[in-house]
């Protein structure tokens, strides 16, 4: 039950963000949408790693039990990497959007369209 909730959230976030990438026209709004897509991937991996009645994979904090269960460590490690990569991509996209605004005076994709031809 619980897991279905999480997976449905993941897929809904992905669909929401891709649909808004298709329909939104503001460059900064697109960056927000892509961030949401990235978060959905992160949530997907963390959900994959989860096991009920377990502890975090850190022995310092773990209870001294005989029967020790832990969540899976490798998706968490990958998501750490992905979060930093996502931040980096966001920063670059925002800087490109800002310079586009400085050059063209608009952030609207429709107004930027069709200007690539001859110059």
């Amino acid at each position: 039950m619980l897991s279905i909730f999480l997976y449905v959230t993941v897929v809904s976030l992905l669909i929401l963000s891709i649909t808004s990438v298709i329909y939104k026209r503001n460059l900064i709004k697109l960056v927000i949408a892509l961030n949401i897509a990235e978060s959905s991937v992160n949530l997907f991996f963390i959900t994959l790693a989860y096991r009920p009645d377990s502890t975090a994979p850190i022995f310092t904090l773990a209870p001294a039990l005989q029967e020790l269960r832990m969540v899976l460590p490798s998706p968490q490690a990958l998501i750490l990497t992905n979060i930093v990569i996502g931040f980096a991509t966001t920063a670059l996209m925002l800087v490109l959007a800002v310079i586009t605004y400085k050059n063209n005076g608009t952030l609207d994709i429709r107004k930027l369209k069709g200007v690539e031809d001859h110059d």
Partner: protein
Amino acid sequence: MKLVSLLAMFIIAGFMFTGIGKLHLPGDPAGNSNVFSQRSSEKTDTANISTMDDYYLRNGQMETGSNNIVTSVVFDYRGFDTLGEAAVLFLVVTSISMLLFSIIKGKDLEETVLTDSDGFPAGMTRIVSIGTVLMLPIIMAFGAYLVIHGHLSPGGGFQGGAVMATGTALLVISSFVVRNLQKTYKLFSFFESLGLTVFIVTGFAGMGISFLHNFLANNDGSFLGKVIPLGTNPGFLNSGGILPILSTAVGIEVFCGISIILVLLSRALNARGSQKGGHKC
């Protein structure tokens, strides 16, 4: 065109929603659920292991000398990914410098900030400035703690570096604009490069065996090589082999990299001619 992409999106969504029911659900544990059952006391125990994560959970502590298995995966088993990730951050910092130095020009580099009579910046109220000054040491100390204790408690290079960078963000939003951008930039950029170089040199140091080999772990008594007991324990700071070194290198790199991004962006915001069309918030 939009309709086509939307249609494609819905097809993919249909696949995903039908796929959910078939996914490995977090209720049924793949592999061995009990970490220590039938675990022999050898350094590497390969009996009764069916998945990669089982291997990490059962052997990570003894092989890398790190209590935090996530850190041992990040810096040891999948250290090459971490190198690539650090390269991505370096790459973005380089790109942003390249792009923003076309906006930030000449005089903007040494622009001085308006200050009030006590030397605080004039942009925000005194509460914000003093709050920043009080908060900053705490944030920095917490970040440094996260970096250094990465192999013992939650934390590590990325998290610590990012927390320390929120200190820079605090400075930026409370209008402590950096006085001499050129010098600050060079300093940060030098330390960022240094962090990365330390990382890759540590990787090459194990090259006698293989790249990024944890050659310092479990050398009893020597530098960072303390052997830790199996199971729950408080942990030792001088264990973990190359993990603390890599973690510190990445921490420095992430802190300096994100700081450069923030400082350059805020300076580009205050650069002449960019106020037009901007809004105060």
